[in-house]
């Protein structure tokens, strides 16, 4: 009996909180959709989202496909969430096209939604928060060109062929090196964002090319795999990755990598979540918040001393004007 009354009390509390919430527009429930549990990028994004929600007195629930980057799983989570009716949604689509039916359902249910990181093809969003893969890759590629003094032989190790992220990154790399006529692109080979495959691709390419001065890798996991391949063969090349992950920061500090293009995942998580809460509270949000391409390199290492789990979001006004 005691148990029962406790439960009723809890229920009452929930009810009052709910009413309370409506009155002062606080404690909004925000559903955050990311692509997978394994990529540090999304981990940092989620931490940013949590930090922002905490600062603004809202709460987050994370929806992550158990099978990494699973489109059907993300779509079915959207079905569940639409029924639960959170106040707002932050959505990183696993696939910018395949997400359309999910976005339509969210729109039909009149739930405020912000699109983050990868731009969805259609649907009504409060705004878009992200960085351009192309710009990030271009900035990282330019860092390599600079370090090589505009001269040398370079290879590109790509992610998964046919994905928009990879296409943009490779295009950014290529455009950056094309600016210097004395840089020769020896090969551009895919390694599917996989550490082991990148190591093997690099080992294979070293058999054909006796001299490789620089390597552009489409993510940091591949970049560190490439660093191991070079070290194993007692060879040296300047390596550039993308993501600005903790691992890359350490590798840059140790001199194993030259640089990593950083798409500011923590900040993306912060500002996507702040945007959706502001939109729910009928406060103004800009149509787009695009973070400029940042490159982690020896000179900017100091900014990366604090890991994402210890950071907190900067204020809205510090970034959005």
């Amino acid at each position, binding site marked *: 009996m005691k148990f029962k009354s406790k439960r009723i009390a809890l229920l009452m509390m929930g009810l009052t909180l709910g009413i309370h919430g409506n009155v002062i527009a606080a404690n909004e429930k925000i559903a955050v959709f990311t692509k*997978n*549990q*394994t*990529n*540090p990028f*999304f*981990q940092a994004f989620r931490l940013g989202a949590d930090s922002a929600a905490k600062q603004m007195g809202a709460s987050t629930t994370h929806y992550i496909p*158990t*099978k*990494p980057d699973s489109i059907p799983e993300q779509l079915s989570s959207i079905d569940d969430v639409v029924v639960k009716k959170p106040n707002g949604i932050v959505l990183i689509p696993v696939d910018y096209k395949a997400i359309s039916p999910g976005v339509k359902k969210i729109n039909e249910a009149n739930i405020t939604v912000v699109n983050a990181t990868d731009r969805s093809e259609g649907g009504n969003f409060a705004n878009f928060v992200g960085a351009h893969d192309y710009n990030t890759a271009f900035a990282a590629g330019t860092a390599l060109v600079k370090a090589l003094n505009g001269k040398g032989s370079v290879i590109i190790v*790509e992610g998964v*062929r*046919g994905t928009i992220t990879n296409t943009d990154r490779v295009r950014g790399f290529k455009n950056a090196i094309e600016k210097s006529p004395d840089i020769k692109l*020896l*090969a*551009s*080979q*895919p390694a*599917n964002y*996989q*550490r*082991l*495959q990148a*190591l*093997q*691709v690099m*080992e*294979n*390419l070293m*058999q*054909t090319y006796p001299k490789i001065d620089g390597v552009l890798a489409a993510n940091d*996991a591949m970049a*560190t*795999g490439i660093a*191991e391949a070079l*070290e*194993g063969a007692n060879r040296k090349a300047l390596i550039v990755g993308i993501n600005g*992950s*903790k*691992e890359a920061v*350490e590798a840059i500090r140790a001199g194993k990598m030259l640089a990593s293009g950083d798409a500011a995942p923590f900040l993306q998580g912060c500002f996507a979540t702040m945007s959706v809460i502001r939109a729910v509270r009928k406060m103004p949000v800009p149509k787009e918040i695009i973070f400029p391409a940042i490159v982690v390199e020896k000179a900017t290492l100091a900014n990366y001393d604090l890991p994402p789990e210890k950071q907190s979001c900067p204020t809205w006004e510090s970034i959005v004007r």
Partner: protein
Amino acid sequence: MPIFPNLNNSDELKALFYRLFVVIFICIGLSFLSEAFLTVNNLLNVLRQASLLFLMASGLTLVILTAGIDLSVGANVGMSACLAGTVLLATGSTTLGFLTGICCGALIGLANGLLVTLLRLPSFIATYGMLWILHGITYYFMAGATINGFSKSFRMIGSGYWFGIPVPIYMMLFFLISGSIFLRYTIFGQQIYALGANPVTARLSGVPVTRRLLLVYILSGITAGLASLVFLARLNSAEGDIGEALTLPAIAAVLIGGTSLFGGVGTMLGTLIGALILTLVLNGMNILSIDGNLQALVTGVIIIVSVLLDLILRRKSVV
């Protein structure tokens, strides 16, 4: 002693010979196309790359010989690597890290074996379920983080050399020879073939089916655990999903090598040949710098042609 159908059978040897011929054929083709291919360095490179795949596939060969499947090998590699890596970093002891990897792999194998024998689940379901459980635990445990930076002494097993030859190649040879002897010349091995060919006859002729199946899944777990250590030592880092991309190639290596999914037919040497074919495809494509958009197509065609060639040649030899 029951008579085991596949032993002393020249067909088996012939099939192996033809598959070996495919490997040689690919090698000759590649050495004409690129000067970089037929060098001592590159051949050692190919063997080293194949060794990781072979390690995983060798234990899997035993499972498939019993007409079962182990879909959890990749997830096993991921979990064992993360656990062993954590222990390595925490204790600084190579021995402890090594034991952790092997034990983790073996325990996962034992769990698979119990699901298959005790609960009589089909191996596909049991190990597919296990795959998800392992992923779930590993992803939760790692929370998107990467572990890296292991000691030189540990890294020897992945990136070291003995007498100018990479250490993983010795491991591959050890498992190839001991695995082949185990399968061909021990009662255990023969019982595994018998069990795969016909479990009912095997049981009636006194093969302890449950215990043999348990052994086979544990061995598959152990080789996955060992592969995870080689992986760690080679790459000096690990994250939760490292094994994911290795499951299907490992199964493919076993099947390309001539082991039947229906059990009872296959050899370790065949599995090595399968691993070599898959490795040569990537090596060749990189060396020739084949356009990235075409690589998937080329891989598919070579896998199908390599097995088809064997079938065609075999049919001819029968006539």
